[in-house]
């Protein structure tokens, strides 16, 4: 026989469950604009019918329903879309970082324009042509010196600015690794909370969201993989468990977070005492465990061995993630070869400055052993070097190329003449000097300085074009995946309103049900057995 008050109990369950659904709807609406929030749903499930199963169970005609219960509050999310999103974020991170570096370099080189190095070179050439026409003219000589200084300044400026960019990229790599390390620590801490909550049969949806957000962020830095580990205890089937996070290096998995334990990333090349900010070419990364006393223990990829440093070569990063993008700009060393946008550009500028200066000096300097190579200045003294290195090391680079001090003080010392004694009207060597710009130089891949620079700008342009195009592609793809993710997880106000009405009406109906049962009970209690009263 069922209980007299069973109807009340069943309706009360209805009230409670609809109320939790209504509250969850409220939670969804409140978080409609929260970054990374997945909408939540109360899974409703009927409670077991009456009578229960058993030998002593009362015999009635079939089960009678006993109401509803909320079995779980679940977030709506598609982990496959998450994986796709992270793959696209990886690519976008790389190409965005690369585009940014190239843009900055383009800004500095400032070509094609009327202000860049090629303009300075053109003007220098003009001044030498004028000197050829008027070799005895002090004005023409002063102009040659000033234009020569302008060429040297252009080299210095480009060199120093790109070097500055490179230093900035180094700082950025340090900050990125710090940030990644902090994310790893946070993931481990969220894992710990999740592992504490789940065995009690709860679904910490908002912790899952927070953790997914962190992994999204991490995947813009590196290619990462995750694996779920169930919590045990009374965890629900839908519970997501703790996440083990791996760095996915070309198939090789390097464990970064395991439960509430986490590793920290360290730069393997020369670096600051913080272990992450590079001071010179990067070679790779390794991971360590930070102990309670701040000391560090090296870990291998699956943490089974400790104490020996295992380096992961930078090439394993496969053009994925912002980290690799920055490193590609900053420069790295692999099998003894230096690569990277900034170091390669600096190297090319150095070669160009050095070869141009050497070739120019060779023509400018008097060569007593060669009749064709005789030069002299306005006073008839033999020609000396025109370009020198600022630090007097004799090794000219784009950073230290400068016009010799004695020429700046006395422009008459420019060896415009190809004579042995003083011939004020002889400007033949000035013409030879002018033609250095167009002379092929073996060390510059057998092309002239002019062509070499054109090639350098062309290469930069091609690299830039590729980087911009792929950034755009990655953005489009990421956007598409983001759309799919939003389609699954984002809050729709219309939907929530519909749900609200549904739950409210169900709540109202349950309340009405209680009134009905109340009335039936009223009939029994107050109306029965009072015949004739």
């Amino acid at each position, binding site marked *: 026989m069922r209980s007299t008050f069973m109807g009340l109990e069943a309706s009360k369950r209805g009230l409670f469950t609809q109320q939790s659904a209504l509250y969850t709807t409220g939670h969804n609406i409140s978080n409609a604009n929260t970054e990374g929030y997945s909408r939540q749903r109360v899974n409703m499930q009927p409670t077991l019918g009456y009578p229960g199963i058993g030998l002593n169970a009362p015999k009635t005609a079939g089960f009678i329903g006993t109401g509803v219960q909320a079995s779980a509050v679940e977030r709506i999310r598609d982990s496959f879309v998450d994986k796709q999103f992270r793959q696209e974020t990886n690519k976008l991170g790389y190409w965005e970082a690369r585009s940014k570096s190239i843009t900055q370099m383009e800004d500095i*080189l400032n070509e094609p324009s009327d202000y860049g190095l090629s303009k300075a070179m053109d003007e220098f050439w003009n001044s030498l042509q004028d000197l050829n026409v008027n070799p005895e003219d002090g004005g023409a000589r002063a102009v040659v010196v000033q234009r020569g200084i302008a060429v040297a300044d252009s080299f210095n400026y480009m060199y120093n600015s790109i070097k500055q960019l490179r230093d900035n990229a180094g700082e950025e790599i340090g900050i990125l690794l710090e940030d990644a390390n902090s994310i790893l620590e946070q993931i481990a801490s969220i894992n710990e909370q999740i592992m504490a909550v789940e065995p009690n049969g709860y679904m910490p949806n908002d912790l899952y969201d927070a953790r997914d957000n962190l992994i999204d962020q991490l995947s813009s830095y590196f290619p990462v993989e995750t694996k779920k580990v169930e919590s045990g205890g009374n965890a629900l089937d839908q519970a997501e468990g703790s996440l083990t996070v791996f760095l996915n290096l070309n198939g090789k998995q390097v464990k970064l977070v395991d439960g509430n334990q986490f590793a920290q990333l360290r730069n393997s090349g020369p670096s600051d005492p913080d272990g992450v900010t590079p001071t010179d070419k990067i070679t790779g990364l390794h991971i360590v465990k930070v102990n309670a006393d701040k000391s560090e223990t090296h870990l291998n990829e699956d943490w089974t061995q400790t104490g020996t440093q295992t380096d992961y070569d930078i090439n394993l990063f496969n053009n994925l993630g912002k980290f690799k993008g920055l490193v590609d700009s900053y420069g790295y060393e692999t099998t003894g070869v230096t690569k990277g946008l900034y170091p390669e550009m600096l190297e090319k500028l150095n070669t160009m400055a050095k070869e141009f200066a050497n070739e120019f000096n060779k023509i400018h300097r008097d060569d007593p052993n060669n009749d064709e190579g005789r030069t002299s200045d306005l006073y008839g003294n033999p020609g000396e070097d025109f370009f020198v290195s600022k630090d007097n090391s004799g090794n000219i680079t784009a950073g230290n190329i400068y016009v010799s001090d004695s020429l700046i003080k006395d422009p008459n010392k420019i060896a415009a003449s190809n004579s042995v004694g003083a011939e004020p009207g*002889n400007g033949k060597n000035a013409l030879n000097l002018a033609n250095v710009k167009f002379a092929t130089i073996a060390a510059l891949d057998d092309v002239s300085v002019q062509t070499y620079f054109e090639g350098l700008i062309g290469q930069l342009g091609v690299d830039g074009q590729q980087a911009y195009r792929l950034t755009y592609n990655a953005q489009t793809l990421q956007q598409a995946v983001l759309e799919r993710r939003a*389609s699954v997880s984002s809050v729709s106000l219309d939907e929530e309103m519909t749900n609200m009405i549904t739950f409210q009406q169900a709540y109202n109906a349950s309340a009405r049900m209680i009134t009905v049962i109340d009335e039936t009970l009223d009939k029994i209690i107050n109306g029965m057995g009072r015949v004739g009263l």
Partner: protein
Amino acid sequence: MRVTQSMLSGNMLKNLSNSYSKLGKLQEQINTGKKVNRPSDDPVVAMKGIGYRTQLNNVEQFSRNIGEAYNWLDTTDDTFDKVGSALQRANELMVQASSDTSTPEDREKIDAELQQLQKHIQSLANTKIGDKYIFSGTKTTTAPYNNDNGGYTNNLSDNAFGKTIEIEVFDGINMQINTTPLNLFKNIDDVFEDISSKITNGATADELSSLITSINNNMNELLKTRADIGARQNRVELMDARLQSQEVIATERMSENEDIDYEKTITEMITQESIHRAALSVGSRIIQPTLVDFIS
């Protein structure tokens, strides 16, 4: 597919920003008049642009050099013209002097005039452009004729006075702009010395008339040099014409390479503008009322 408000507004924002960046690019092109403003816009155009700029710069410089060549050659020609007139006059005077009817007094007067002509030619030898002596070879700061230092003689032993001055008038094409007539000047001077001493010594009419031949020989030599200068002037004129057309071509090619087609770009810009406006007006519509607005 389930579509939510945040998807609509996210998409809308992305498209608006795309449309804005296209608008920005077109505006930049119109403002600068250039198709490319950084190498990555179009690496080939950027690379060629550097080359064309240099080429144009070179042509402009060569034009400037040509101006200098004109200056030198014209001045030289003009000087020689005056030297020629002086010799012509000397010739006439000598014809007069060698006549048997001229008295020693007449000859002395003629000699006085001849001496002035000699000085005139000496000063012509010291012609300058700016502060440069144009007949000094590469020793442009030393006068070819120096009265205090043996006239032409000392300079003749210095081979720098025989050196050419060349300027570049086109890629790899050098042109000599000076002339080195020191020997000629010296010969002319010697003839005048000769005449003067002969007249002073009371030479006969026959002796004097033989000197007319010497004057005529130098005159011929002078004409040869002038012919050479004339030929070079012609060459400079040809080169000048070539450079001028080259400058037009280079400017044209540079413009073709990197300048925008204004009609086209402005049309594109207006199209893009209207697309942007459309996108904005659509934007105002995506903020649709939700069910909230209808539930009381």
